[in-house]
């Protein structure tokens, strides 16, 4: 699948994960790359892009016996954006499915 096309979808997946709970970069990277076939390095630029757009924020959390870990948290703007994008996505794939089924019926 086209990389640029995937990136948009992965943004949605990242937001979906952060919508449920705060996570750190590696956690998100593992979670996504286990399900979707992308290289591990793709997630970090996406996280930074989401941050610069104000959809997520970061904070540091002191872990026992290690350096502080950077967590990502979804913002209010991010929540709204996620819900809107999710609805749009579901609608879109629904339409695409319908379209493809028509093709199969013939």
């Amino acid at each position, binding site marked *: 699948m086209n990389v640029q096309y995937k990136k948009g979808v992965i943004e949605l997946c990242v937001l979906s994960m952060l919508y449920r709970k705060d996570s750190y970069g590696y956690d998100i990277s593992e979670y996504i790359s286990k399900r979707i076939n992308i290289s591990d390095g*793709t997630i*970090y630029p996406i996280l930074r892009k989401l941050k610069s757009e104000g959809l997520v924020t970061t904070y540091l959390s002191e872990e026992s016996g290690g350096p502080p870990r*950077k967590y990502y948290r979804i913002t209010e703007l991010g929540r709204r954006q996620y819900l809107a994008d999710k609805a749009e996505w579901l609608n879109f794939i629904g339409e695409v499915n319908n379209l493809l089924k028509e093709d199969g019926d013939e």
Partner: protein
Amino acid sequence: MNRKEFIETLTKKLRENNISDIDEIIAEYEEHFNFKLTDGYSEEEIAAGLGNPEEIAMQYTSGNIDNKTIGKKAIITTGLVFADIFAGAFFALFFAWVIVMVTFTIASATVGVCYLGRFNIYSLIPPIPYYWCRIVYVVMLLSLAVLSGVGTIYCAAYYRQLMRAYGRFHYNCIASASGKAVFPPLNIRPQFSAKTYRLFRKIVLIALAVFAVSFVLSYILSAIATGSLEFWHVWKWFIE
């Protein structure tokens, strides 16, 4: 490609693309390497999994934090300098107060011990000629020393925690102005364990009770012993 090569190429390419906060970006990849290494992957496998560093560096161009943050950072830094001056004066004063408390504790304890052991170096301590009176004064002074000692520990702990909280605030101000991740703010009050806290409370309550009783008792005993309500005149305290 091993870890070092990957990080170096990525850093170089990020620099070429004029990306800000390269350290923060690199830190994420270093962390990624650390996690994967613990899981038993080799450096080469991890680097391959991450993908081409040159392509990764390209992807950062779209999410670059622009130069607006630089002006904001200058304002925050200036504000912080003024805040630091006031905080510095406050902490110096607070420190002096802790020293006063330490001195007071040592002084009460020393005078108490001197009465108990009948040491009176250079006749600096006002005389108490009667044995029982002296014992009550000793109890009073030592309980005062305990009270003041616990107070000193609490104040010193408060001082330390307040300094740490201010340091954290200082760090967070600069970090947030540069768009970096911040730490959660620290509590400004000292964080004792419930057990320590209960122990302090117990010691303070007992010492306070002992001090109050011995204070009243010392006056009554002294007044009886001298037959005067202003016994300090009889014992010739506070005069050359």
